[in-house]
Each structure stands twice: as structure tokens, then as C-alpha cells.
């Protein structure tokens, strides 16, 4: 699995499409509705799924662990939301925490970790 992280609007999806020759049909874009389909080769906006998890008390890391055989050869894309002040709202705090734990787990499992900064790649692993 290749993990791509970076701040909002940095060009992560565009990078992934070029790097892995992904078609639009191969990309599952998460929304805050709790749906996630691990059968897609690329999961995008994972931070939207973790926001749903944080709001609904779902263990996102547990969900990912139980589907590992489905994503372990895929491309996972998540926003880096870890550099601001501690959010005042309880849900946003839980969101940051959950997303951070998930990214740490995925980063450990990943064959490669790439951060995208202003459209440029930075190899982290």
C-alpha cells in the first residue's frame, strides 16, 4: 500500500493519478456519510470518513485493520490535519485524534509514504 498525505489542496489526487495511472472509476472518494468501499484501488479523502467515525464513535483503525487484505495493495490518500491549534469542539478534537491514529497505523503498514507539498512530492518512507 502506498500512503499519500499532505495539506488540503496540495494536489495529492492529481499526483496519485499520474503516479499510479489511476482512472476516475478506480477512485473511491469518501464523504461524511460513513460509506467506504475497500474494493477500490484508491481511497481518497479518508479524512471525511474519519470525521464520520469521530462523530459516531466508530473505531476507524479497527475498521481498516479488519479490511487490510482489501487495501494492502492499494493507494490511500488522506489530508494532513495535524498542524493547527487543538480544536475547541469535542467532535473536531476526536476527528484529529482518530485521523492521526489511523495515519500512524497506515504509515507503519505502508510500502511508501509520500507527502505532497505545493504539488511536489516529498518521500517520507
Amino acid at each position, binding site marked *: 500500500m502506498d500512503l499519500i498525505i*499532505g*495539506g*488540503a*489542496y*496540495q*494536489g495529492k489526487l492529481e499526483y496519485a493519478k499520474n503516479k499510479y495511472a489511476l482512472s476516475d472509476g478506480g477512485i473511491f472518494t469518501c464523504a461524511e456519510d460513513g460509506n467506504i468501499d475497500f474494493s477500490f484501488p484508491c481511497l481518497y479523502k479518508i479524512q471525511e470518513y474519519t470525521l464520520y467515525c469521530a462523530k459516531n464513535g466508530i473505531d476507524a483503525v479497527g475498521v481498516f485493520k479488519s479490511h487490510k487484505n482489501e487495501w494492502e495493495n492499494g493507494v490511500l490518500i488522506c*489530508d*494532513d*490535519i*495535524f*498542524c*493547527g*491549534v487543538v*480544536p475547541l469542539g469535542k467532535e*473536531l*478534537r476526536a*476527528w*484529529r485524534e482518530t*485521523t492521526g491514529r489511523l495515519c500512524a497505523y497506515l504509515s507503519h503498514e505502508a510500502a511508501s509514504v509520500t507527502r505532497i*507539498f*505545493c*504539488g*511536489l512530492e*516529498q518521500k517520507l518512507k
Partner: protein
Amino acid sequence: MNVLISGGCKNGKSAFAQDIAVKLSGGGRRFYVATMIPYDGEDRKRIENHISDRSGMGFTTLEIGRDVGSCLDIAGENGTFLVDSITALLLNELFSSHGGEADPEAAERCIRGLDRIIRQAENAVFVTDYIYSDAFRYDEFTESYRSSLARLDRFLAKECGAVIELCAGSAIFHKGGFEL
């Protein structure tokens, strides 16, 4: 040569950019393109601090809040232009003529001006702010501001020969490199 400098707020990007601009310019002319339009005493104080920080470094200050490419009409192409900051420039362009409404053409206008500087100026150093990694849900206007600024950043990162992220005053080179 063109250089983009980004990074979190308040970690010395402007001072770093000034040093780079002095270095790039050699003995040549140096222009500080100040894009911030002051709105209150706090802004004016920040501007005073920046002016005193760069005193004695040989910069001629050009106050250009909009139409950033016009710095070349004033100063000519021969010289090193430090544009500080892209963040303020975009904000000014967003509210240029629409009486409170954000102008949807603002980002495109910024890109045209920046492109002109990249193509024509002898050297340029651009300072922007990295505001993309916090855990917050912003209103629609702020999100559109963030996505537009990111668009300018990505454009500059593509066009500049060196891209540097500053972290606590230390440089991370994302592209290019030179002796600091």
C-alpha cells in the same frame, strides 16, 4: 532565478527571503514588493517591524497591493524582486472591486501578474503561507480562499527553480537548491 518560500506563519519566512534575495542579487538592484495594505494599527506595526528588519539591506520598497506585475513597469526588469506576500496579494485581489463580494477572477489575475514576474524579472523571491494542515471546517468563503491560495502556490512551485519550506527558521528544500 525564481524561488518560492512557504511554511507556517511567524517562523521567519520574510527574514529568510530577504537574505536569499540579497544573495541572488549579488551587487544588483533589490526591490521589496510589499503587498500588504494596512487596515489597522496592528497591520501598520507589522509593516514598521518589517521595514526596520530590512533597513540597511539595500531594498527599494514598492507598495503594490494589486496587479503585482506592475512592479516591472515601475522598476524595470533588471533586479531582484522580493514579493511578500502572496497571501496578502490574493486577499487584496479578492476584494478589489466587488464591494464586499469575493471576485471569482482574483486567482487568475494573480497568476497572470506572477507569471509576468517569473518570465521577465532577473530574479524573484515569493513568500507565501502554508495554511492547509489544521483540523477545522471553515466557511465557504475561507475554503475558497484556501483553495485559491493553494492554486497560486502550486503554480509558483511548478515555475520556480527552488521551492523551500521554512520550519522554525530552518530550510527544507522541496525543489532545487543553492548554498545558503
